[in-house]
């Protein structure tokens, strides 16, 4: 199968392309979705396709070839369309290989896993034990294999596999908690722990009272802090900056977060999206994007790097640079110390539906869900409901007061779109609003 990627590149060059990238992808993922404490459907995928990127006389085209028996004809069609397209003067080529890649292999136990029911049962069991009545979520065994060939001397192979479980536990419609388990090795996978966390929050969130608007000091659980860091790093793609879809334009070297905040994007680190190379074949690496609150770099592919007079950060996607996995440097606070620091504030455990009034200034709102707690002197006073976090992305990160000394890997349904390794965070002066009567 690997030969197909080489054949596509060869064909493209034969037809006059200057740059060609073919990534042959084999997706063998498996999933169980569950709700009301039972599986609702199990899914399996057997898909093999080639993601192709071609440049013909500065005309950039891309496709996914699903019919691999027809790959030559697909490339011919694509080149024909490229010729009718228009030049992109901002494309300056792709990374020149060959490269050496880190030796990483997936856990054979993860690859051999055929049945995930015990993990689902462990998660649900953990939640019910803590007092939950109803659980829903997904278990995934992700597996995909990539064979990448480019016209610039790159040949790479990457077999990726990981385990993921997301569980929402409920005691009623308005009392719920969420837990996440992520692992690249079977021995590190802890679905029961995720279930117990979800169940514990759900039980604690019983009989929530309508929340009150105001400015609060807030403890962000890792899942909701991961949403903030996911938003931040997503907006650090050079593409988002150039498209006017980022509040980080012209802020390199400037303060964009408090001194407590150091954020790294690292596709080579141990996460469930670990990868050996980006879409141009550049080895993934550790990129410090925010260091002690100062913005150090955007995320680049070869073309955007040239535009910003720097080097690629190894974050190429098929078209635009994108983050791989976020690692927030832990702080030196114990989790309990963070809670104790709050005299009168909130503890938020999850959020969803983050939307911006303007990407340029970063004004946003997002809706906390699952456990929302009013805390005094570190103790939970009561559960709240029906509030909205209304603030600004940069201001939120500038107001980070403390981070806990350990991190957890979070990823969840769009809101935390890639793995974010995040601690508990304490943020001051956070705006909270609620629906008017």
């Amino acid at each position, binding site marked *: 199968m690997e030969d197909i990627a080489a054949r596509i590149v060869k064909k493209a060059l034969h037809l006059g392309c200057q740059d060609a990238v073919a990534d042959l992808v084999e997706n063998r993922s498996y999933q169980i979705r569950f709700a009301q404490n039972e599986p*609702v459907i199990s899914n399996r995928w*057997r898909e093999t396709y080639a993601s192709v990127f071609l440049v013909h006389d500065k*005309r950039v085209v891309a496709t996914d070839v699903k019919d691999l028996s027809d790959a030559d004809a697909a490339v011919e069609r694509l080149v024909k*369309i490229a010729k009718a*397209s228009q030049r992109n003067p901002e494309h300056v080529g792709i990374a020149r290989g060959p490269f050496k890649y880190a030796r990483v292999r997936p856990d054979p136990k993860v690859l051999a896993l055929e049945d995930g029911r015990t993990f689902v049962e462990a998660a649900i069991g953990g939640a019910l034990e803590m007092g939950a009545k109803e659980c829903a979520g997904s278990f995934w065994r992700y597996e995909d294999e990539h064979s990448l060939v480019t016209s610039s001397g790159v040949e790479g192979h990457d077999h990726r596999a990981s385990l993921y479980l997301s569980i929402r536990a409920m005691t009623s419609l308005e009392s719920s908690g969420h837990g996440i388990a992520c692992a690249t090795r079977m021995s590190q996978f802890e679905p029961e722990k995720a279930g117990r966390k979800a169940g514990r929050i759900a039980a604690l969130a019983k009989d929530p009272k309508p929340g009150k608007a105001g400015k609060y000091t807030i403890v962000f659980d890792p899942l909701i802090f991961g949403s903030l860091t996911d938003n931040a790093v997503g907006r650090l793609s050079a593409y988002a900056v150039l498209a006017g*879809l980022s509040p980080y334009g012209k802020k390199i070297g400037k303060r964009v977060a408090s001194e407590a905040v150091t954020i790294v994007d690292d596709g080579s680190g141990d996460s469930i999206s670990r990868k050996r190379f980006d879409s141009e074949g550049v080895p993934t690496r550790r990129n410090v994007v925010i260091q002690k609150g100062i913005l150090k770099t955007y995320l680049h592919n070869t073309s955007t790097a040239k535009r910003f007079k720097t080097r690629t950060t190894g974050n190429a996607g098929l078209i635009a640079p994108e983050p791989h996995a976020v690692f927030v440097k832990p702080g030196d606070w114990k989790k309990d110390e963070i809670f104790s620091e709050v005299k009168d504030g909130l503890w938020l455990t999850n959020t969803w*539906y983050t939307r911006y009034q303007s990407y340029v200034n970063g004004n946003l709102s997002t809706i906390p869900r699952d456990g929302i707690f009013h805390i005094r002197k570190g103790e939970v006073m009561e559960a709240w409901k029906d509030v*909205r976090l209304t603030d600004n992305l940069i201001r939120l990160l500038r107001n980070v007061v403390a981070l806990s000394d350990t991190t957890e890997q979070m990823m969840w349904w769009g809101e935390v779109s890639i793995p974010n390794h995040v601690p508990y965070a304490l943020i001051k002066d956070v705006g909270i609003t609620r629906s008017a009567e």
Partner: protein
Amino acid sequence: MEAEQDLVDFAVDYARQRGATYAEARFERQEQENFILKNGVLDALYVGQDRGLGVKVLAGGSLGFAATNTLTKPGVREIVDDAVHLAKASRRKTPIAFAQEEAITTNWSVPEGKKLADVPVEEKIAEIREVDKQLMALGLKVPARYFQLADNRIIKYFGNSEGSRIRSYSPRLRIYYYLTVVREGDSEQTHRDYGWSGGWEGVRAWDLTNRVLEEARSMDKSLREGKKSPEGKMDLVVGPQVSGIAAHESCGHPTEADRVLGREASQAGKSFISPDGLGMKVGSELVNVCDDPTIEHAIAYYLTDDEGVRARRRYLYKEGRVNEFLQNRETAAYFRTRSNGAARAVNYNVEAIVRMANTFVEPKDQSLEELLEGVKFGVYMKSFMEWNIDDKRYNAKYAGREAYLVENGQLKHPVRNTVIELTTPTFWSAVDAVGKDFEFEAGFCGKSDPGQALDASLGGPSMRLRNVYLR
């Protein structure tokens, strides 16, 4: 296509042989062309030729689904084996059942004036370049301009073990754009999204250039003349874009039966409407909200859903009360009713679940001028930018993009960042007049895991709300 139809038939028959009590197979081919024109530069042209087959089975009271793009008998046999094995291994305590539906054999297609496949890519690019050129000719400062034009030609062949065989063709066209207008260090952003089921004539129907220019001018006017929006209780007139998003978010989503039953609880969430909530009062008697897949040229047009059930109009809220849930065959069985044809999937490789199609507030008889005439002091919010709603679909926020102060029925200066933050019943109960104007916009509706961002239309007339809190 004949070979693919044979594979669908084979998948269904083989699944029954393997012990499935019900089986369905769906072949899809999606031919896509889309490009981004960013700040006048054609970033990249994406040309997709996607196709594959998915099979869903009911075995032992549980569901299994598997998909492949290896369109051979061995390839299909493998996924049928997967789906049956997965279903049987699930061992649910409460068996899943499907509501009874008639078997359908049909072949439908969306009329396509000028075929999308016949329009050269250079013509498509030139169309959007011209819009960008006219925009720049306004002489405004528009430092970030992002246009994405996408067309998709979707061919499906569906078969199930009850004898349904359905072939369909849906050409779709969509433009999404983002603009940032700047003046004296201040900025306004907008995004708009228009869709069309049909051929290239949709571009003319959009009247895109005029709409984009009008939008940019209004943004500049907001920057030049905009003042702080008044805060407090007052009357509000909303435009079709705001009616549409409210219809989608606080009527369409909470009436999705799978959400009501908790199947989406971990992702898209649940609903403030309980399973026995039909008849519950949520708005004034003027409020009728429909979802209708059969509206010609609306981007989510279809005549049969992805479970082979005929599509029809659904009155979700009628005279201010919850009237009907959106159902697929699985949820309909739970509610002891019939599916109303709401099962949709974004592609062959995911299961069809309960989805909205074209959701809208039903128009009535008042002109915009008549709606405004009744306002002594308030705000006309023509369009919005930021929005969100909680996962039980009860607390929504819409932040104004283009909005004006209204005094004694007259539009005054623009007001900026007007915020509506209300519960679903508060919003819909405040409606005291509904306009006769009507517009649809397109949206991507997100749901399920893996996520399915699906074409949807959101629309309605202008509406007047009395005495609501704005800030």
